């Protein structure tokens, strides 16, 4: 072939987009005379499934051990050792994937997409920490979760976060949970995995933006205890609410509280609540009026949230690749933009009609209209509920760990003088026995 002819063939074929056409053999495979044997395409096997079952077994064992260490041994040092071991195994050895936080989305996708079924190991990872939380509080957060552990390990100088700021920032976690569920249910994206800030450290490599976010969170984590767990973690939202009902709670003092306030100072997560009586006489009237206002505001917030979510439906829908494709193709077809992108080229290569694409996109958008409304309503519900709960006063006679905010790390045990008394007694009894 002359160079000229080759060039013509080259340009002709460039003009005819023929990528993706199936089964076209332009040059028939030769029949060899030299006895040449066709090699096969190699297909290295996927990771064996039993590894995931081993992970699930390790998870159960670690949770059992964590419950024992927190509630029976009451030893911060032992919990810390377990936490570091879990960080090494689930984080650095197993690369931070599979994790219960991301499993929220697998469960959601299973419920909404009949073509997907959650792997059993992922289901175990989702359910087991929930069950343990119902019995023993957030022992998963305190000693087993690698994301919690990496933040807990860098905490050197805890600074108290004001209660109002903490409650406000926690809304982010609820919104993140809602968004994670919304985008998983519509089959658009696994948001929680995409923006996992620490998995890059576990794998020692990731997208620079995510690594930067993770590094920032760790920097903040030097002074603010576990910022991701408290203000962002979507699984933490589920765990904190289940933990309110937990059968066994972290009881700071083994006997009676002497109100020395030492535990309050040592908790880096602001989880310890001081004793309170009734409202002071003057404040009671204001508080009652405030509560009434919030009760009236509650349905307005829910309705407003739902309306906001509904009006953002098209922005949300853009997370779905098919909707993005449809929008790009529409812009090109109506000559609002010049040129094509990889996305529109790939669509045209499939040979589908634009009408079919637009119909798909419309259907996805209508799903987002419902999902967006529910998502917005959920945020309004949480915000309104939080306002109401914050304006109700609970009576407490001793210093208590708020079961929702307590990560069961065991730091407060060490601070309690009564605990030291108990340990001394135990040591004496031990010595007598010996």
């Amino acid at each position, binding site marked *: 072939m002359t160079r000229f002819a080759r060039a013509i063939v080259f340009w002709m*074929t460039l003009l005819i987009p023929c990528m993706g056409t199936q089964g076209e053999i332009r040059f028939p495979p030769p029949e060899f*005379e030299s006895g040449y044997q066709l090699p096969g395409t190699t297909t290295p096997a*996927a990771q064996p499934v039993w590894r995931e079952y081993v992970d699930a077994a390790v998870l159960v064992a670690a949770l059992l051990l964590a419950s024992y260490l927190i509630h029976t041994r009451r030893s911060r040092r032992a919990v810390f050792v377990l936490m570091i071991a879990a960080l090494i195994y689930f984080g650095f050895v197993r690369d931070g994937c599979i994790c219960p936080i991301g499993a929220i989305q697998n469960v959601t996708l*299973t419920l909404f997409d009949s073509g997907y079924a959650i792997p059993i190991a992922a289901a175990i990872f*989702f359910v087991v920490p929930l069950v343990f939380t119902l019995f023993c509080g957030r022992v998963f957060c305190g000693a087993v979760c690698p994301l919690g552990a990496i933040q807990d390990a860098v905490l050197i100088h805890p600074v108290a976060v004001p209660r109002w700021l903490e409650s406000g920032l926690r809304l982010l976690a609820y919104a993140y949970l809602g968004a994670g569920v919304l985008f998983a249910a519509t089959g658009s994206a*696994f948001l929680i995995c995409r923006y996992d800030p620490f*998995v890059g450290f576990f794998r020692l*490599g990731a997208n620079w933006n995510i690594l930067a976010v993770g590094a920032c969170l760790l920097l903040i984590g030097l002074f603010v205890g576990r910022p991701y767990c408290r203000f962002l973690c979507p699984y933490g939202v589920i765990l904190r609410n289940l933990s309110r009902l937990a059968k066994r709670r972290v009881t700071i003092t083994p006997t009676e509280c002497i109100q020395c306030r030492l535990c309050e100072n040592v908790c880096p997560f602001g989880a310890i609540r001081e004793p309170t009586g009734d409202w002071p006489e003057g404040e009671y009237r204001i508080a009652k009026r405030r509560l009434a206002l919030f009760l009236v505001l509650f349905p307005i917030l829910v309705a407003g949230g739902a309306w906001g979510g509904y009006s953002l439906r098209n922005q949300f829908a853009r997370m779905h690749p098919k909707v993005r494709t449809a929008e790009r193709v529409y812009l090109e077809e109506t000559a609002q933009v010049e040129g094509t992108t990889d996305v529109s080229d790939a669509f045209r290569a499939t040979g589908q009609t634009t009408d079919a694409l637009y119909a798909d996109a419309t259907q996805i958008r209508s799903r987002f209209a419902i999902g967006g409304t529910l998502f917005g309503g959920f945020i309004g519900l949480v915000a309104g509920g939080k306002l109401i709960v914050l304006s109700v006063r609970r009576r407490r006679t001793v210093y208590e760990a708020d079961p929702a905010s307590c990560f069961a790390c065991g730091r407060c045990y060490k601070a309690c003088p009564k605990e030291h008394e108990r340990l001394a007694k135990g040591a004496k009894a031990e010595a007598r026995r010996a």
Partner: protein
Amino acid sequence: MADKQENMTRRSFLREGLWGGCLVGTGAAAGLSVARNNRDNYVWQIDPYKCIACGNCMTHCVLEDSAVKCVQAYAMCGYCDLCTGYLVPEPKALDTAAENALCPTGAIKRTYVEDPYYEYTIDESLCNACGKCVKGCTVFGNGSLFLQVRHDRCKNCNECAIAAACPSQAFKRVPADQPYLLKGADRKE
């Protein structure tokens, strides 16, 4: 005092009820997922008939050295002397010299079989999944070179970072016991 205790019982009754409800709820979630499940696991794979060889596989994998590599379906290959997956569009000569090679990392080995046929093999340790050869082979040739997720490398992320960036939605979850989507006669589906 008696009044207070009655209050507490009502509260604890509600608590117990809610607790039981939550336990049943998690149990139901677990039961439902196990009942729906019929496979051990899913892995990510590229459908080669959807792939447009855009090059995102090279840049978007969470691994420094992408888990995606180019593979050769030998049964489809034409064993051409003028291989459009191996040589740049206007090569100075039809040989293995670097200035003629399309592959930026020299991962394709060209070996003489018999006149006029040459075998093209991928050295996976050198391949960086840029897709240049795939594009050349698919547009001008038989399309025997294509990209596949290699499961000895893949971390099987819950959401594949390349899948999220794929313009042609060629990535999909496939059952782990059939983890490859090959081309031609090798394709099982």
